[in-house]
């Protein structure tokens, strides 16, 4: 069974602050990404293409913390990370700390397909982008009035809502299984609002925020990245399935509600197993998420 799940970040989602109009906006963005990815699977496309499509749509949507509308560093710049993994061949590509790449997920995919490497960072990643004929964009492209305002209030010492637009924990991602049984995962983020330049979270780290292995599972995480790195979160979920015979649901539950809770980190993740079963779980108040599969399931949820 082919299936796709997406997320648009996890965090505190105070129902009161999420006005009906904004909620509709988020739901519409999630739906467009979910359906965009699903359409790839429906016409027999690869899971890799499906996750890249869904994530690109979320990167382009200004309300989510990735690509256009990403959270800003303490210097007021967008600094972006992304990773993609192909579970059929254990291939992976990732970029971190890029400032001028419109769709970091596409550059991550190019790293996977056109270089011998997995991870390129900073100016070197952008040099590779130019060598691969990407057009770079000014950093200003990513900055939205909402993110500038959010940065300013955080720098004034006011507590920034983790969400609306989702910031502290706002990452976007997708996992999919195609009709051939191939699994793929993709994640993209601007990281934390007011972050230190050069800080890299779990998103572009294979095994931490992103992982896919055919026959086992594909995972994309969102949350307090440092904890997900220390716990090797995405690979931990797959190792629990592969080595301990856990169901995907058990594996995700243990990671989020036992291991990360003990460490003091919160967040959420989406995962899909070899049969196309989807798990979406989180330890925060909410997680923007969506799932759609060939059996007719189609859902979008926040709380």
């Amino acid at each position: 069974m082919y299936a796709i799940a997406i997320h648009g970040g996890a965090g505190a989602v105070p129902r009161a602050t999420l006005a009906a109009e904004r909620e509709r906006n988020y739901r519409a963005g999630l739906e467009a990404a979910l359906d965009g990815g699903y359409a790839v699977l429906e016409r027999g496309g690869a899971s890799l293409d499906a996750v890249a499509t869904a994530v690109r749509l979320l990167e382009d949507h200004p309300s989510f913390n990735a690509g256009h509308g990403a959270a800003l560093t303490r210097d007021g710049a967008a600094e972006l990370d992304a990773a993609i993994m192909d579970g059929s061949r254990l291939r992976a590509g990732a970029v971190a700390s890029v400032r001028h790449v419109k769709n970091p997920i596409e550059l991550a995919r190019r790293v996977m397909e056109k270089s011998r490497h997995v991870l390129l960072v900073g100016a070197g990643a952008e040099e590779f982008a130019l060598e691969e004929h990407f057009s770079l964009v000014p950093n200003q492209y990513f900055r939205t009035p909402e993110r500038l305002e959010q940065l300013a209030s955080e720098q004034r010492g006011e507590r920034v809502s983790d969400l609306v637009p989702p910031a502290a924990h706002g990452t976007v991602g997708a996992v999919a299984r195609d009709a051939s049984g191939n699994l793929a995962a993709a994640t993209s983020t601007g990281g934390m609002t007011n972050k230190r330049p050069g800080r890299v979270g779990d998103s572009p780290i294979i095994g931490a925020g992103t992982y896919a292995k055919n026959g086992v599972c594909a995972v994309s995480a969102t949350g307090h990245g440092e904890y997900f790195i220390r716990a090797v979160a995405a690979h931990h979920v797959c190792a629990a399935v592969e080595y301990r015979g856990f169901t995907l649901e058990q594996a995700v539950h243990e990671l989020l509600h036992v291991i990360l809770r003990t460490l003091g980190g919160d967040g959420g993740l989406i995962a899909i197993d070899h049969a196309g079963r989807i798990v979406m779980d989180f330890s925060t108040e909410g997680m923007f998420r969506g799932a759609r599969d060939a059996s007719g399931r189609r859902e979008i949820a926040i709380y």
Partner: protein
Amino acid sequence: MSRRNITVILLALLAGTAGSVCNAAPAPASAPVAIVIHGGAGVIERSRMTPERAASYRAGLGAALDAGYEVLERGGSSLDAVVAAVRQLEDDPQFNAGRGAVLNQDGDAELDAAIMDGAGPRAGAVAGVHHVRNPIELARLVMDKSPHVLLVAGGAEEFALEQGMVLVPRSYFRTEAREHELQEARRAAAARATGKPTTLIALPAGLPSMGTVGAVALDRAGNLAAATSTGGLTNKHRGRVGDTPLIGAGTYASNDSCAVSGTGEGEYYIRQVVAYDVCALVQYRRMSLAQAVHEVVQVKLRRTGGEGGVIALDRSGNIAMDFNSAGMFRGARDSRGRREIAMYRDAGD
């Protein structure tokens, strides 16, 4: 998942946590201490290794091994021991880390390092730095003094300055031997280039291109730690980051399982999450440390064509050093009287 299953998992985890707490309590002076180091898996071909060079590598490895061991012997922490050993290897121009690191396509050393405290789990790492004399010390500061795990490039160096570190010019890292290697690698790449130009260049065989350095240690309190530092690949693309600074790939330590430092073709180590996989096999498959290392290095990495090795250590003081390459610079020393340094397959060489 049924409530019963959740309860079972919770109980198992609580038991594990309680166990760690007990084990972390002051241990008798007879508790084993041990340190294992590596200086890379890209060892010079045996035919090109002169007795003088062999003696010089052995002396470098011995100095790092003993520097780390002395910390453990006087009751110091495994974290301090792995830093002492790795710093020594970074300062030794023979090894591919710190001074004498290999040079990237621009002719600069571009350095990565990571450290992990098995008692935490806490970790710190840096990647793509050009002006930090001892990257392992900066990785430690990231762990100890920031809420983050990984800082890269200019942002990492900004943090170094904020922490009062003195930066050094790029020329500090360059050695004549590495300049020569870079020229050779460029020539080899130019010769290979046919039709479509490639930006990403394989290394000529025989150069110690996989010469990452690393250490794992067990202290008297029963805590494990791991540290790894590297200049990466000769003639590498600017911005390329290998497995070394990625927690779970090239570096991992947990008191629940083991401590691992890897060296080899980093991209394979990242995709297979090698260091964490060794520990997951120990913890969840109940493999011995030697079995787990063998499974990962000789079976899983070999299957994909990934060349290299790992060093690993568990809380009982079991040591594993394994590689699927021609050789691996390595050394081990423990409180049971073992002290060895080796380069090729047969330990005595």
